[in-house]
């Protein structure tokens, strides 16, 4: 079956980790993830500048490796990302900001990608809050 997964929380929230564990279990069970969509504070789960405390899980890093390893389509909402300072090279240049914290495998795009992902999947799973 096909899943679309939307993450509304930053990497330090338990729900971001739940989304990751769900995604890992879905792939392990032979299912497909057609899209991951990071929305609202979920864009912080995509930031390359997140530094997890040494005695805590690096969930942002785990997302990055998971997406890279399985070559998943991981979209970060561009409007939510810009207002939270999560920028790729193109946007940092466009708005003349000093830093880039959204390298590959992430892609900046619009909310339409969430809608399209939900339409092409059998289930849309949303994870947010604590």
């Amino acid at each position, binding site marked *: 079956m096909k899943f679309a997964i939307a993450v509304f929380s930053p990497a330090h929230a338990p729900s971001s980790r739940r989304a990751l564990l769900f995604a890992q*279990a879905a792939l392990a069970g032979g299912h497909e993830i057609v899209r991951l969509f990071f929305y609202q504070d979920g864009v912080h789960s995509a930031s390359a500048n997140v530094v997890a405390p040494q005695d805590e899980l690096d969930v942002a890093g785990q997302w990055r490796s998971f997406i890279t390893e399985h070559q998943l389509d991981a979209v970060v909402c561009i409007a939510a990302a810009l207002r939270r300072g999560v920028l790729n090279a193109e946007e940092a240049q466009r708005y003349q900001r000093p830093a880039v914290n959204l390298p590959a495998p992430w892609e900046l795009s619009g909310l339409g990608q969430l809608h399209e992902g939900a339409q092409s999947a059998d289930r849309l*799973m949303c994870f947010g809050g604590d």
Partner: protein
Amino acid sequence: MSTLHVISHSPFGDNRLSSCLRLLGSDDGLLLCGDAVYALQPGSAPLASLQASNLQGRLFALEEDLNARAISAGETTRAIDYPGFVALSLNYDKVNSWL
């Protein structure tokens, strides 16, 4: 059309659980995860409302979140792991997360 409702907020902090129970259809399921598993605390008002809602066979809780909070599932609740969560989401037509 059946819906799996997923709640992750503590029932002691807001009205999500009571709103959800009011809306829950007879074929719908309810999965408690994160702080929402505190609803299963023995002797609590949220547990009483769950028990009064006739949820036999359709009340679930994430095992990991139960263990992390030293709460046991009890007789009315089925504890599930992440592969069980994936399977459960496919047993219902839609999944609605109470974000």
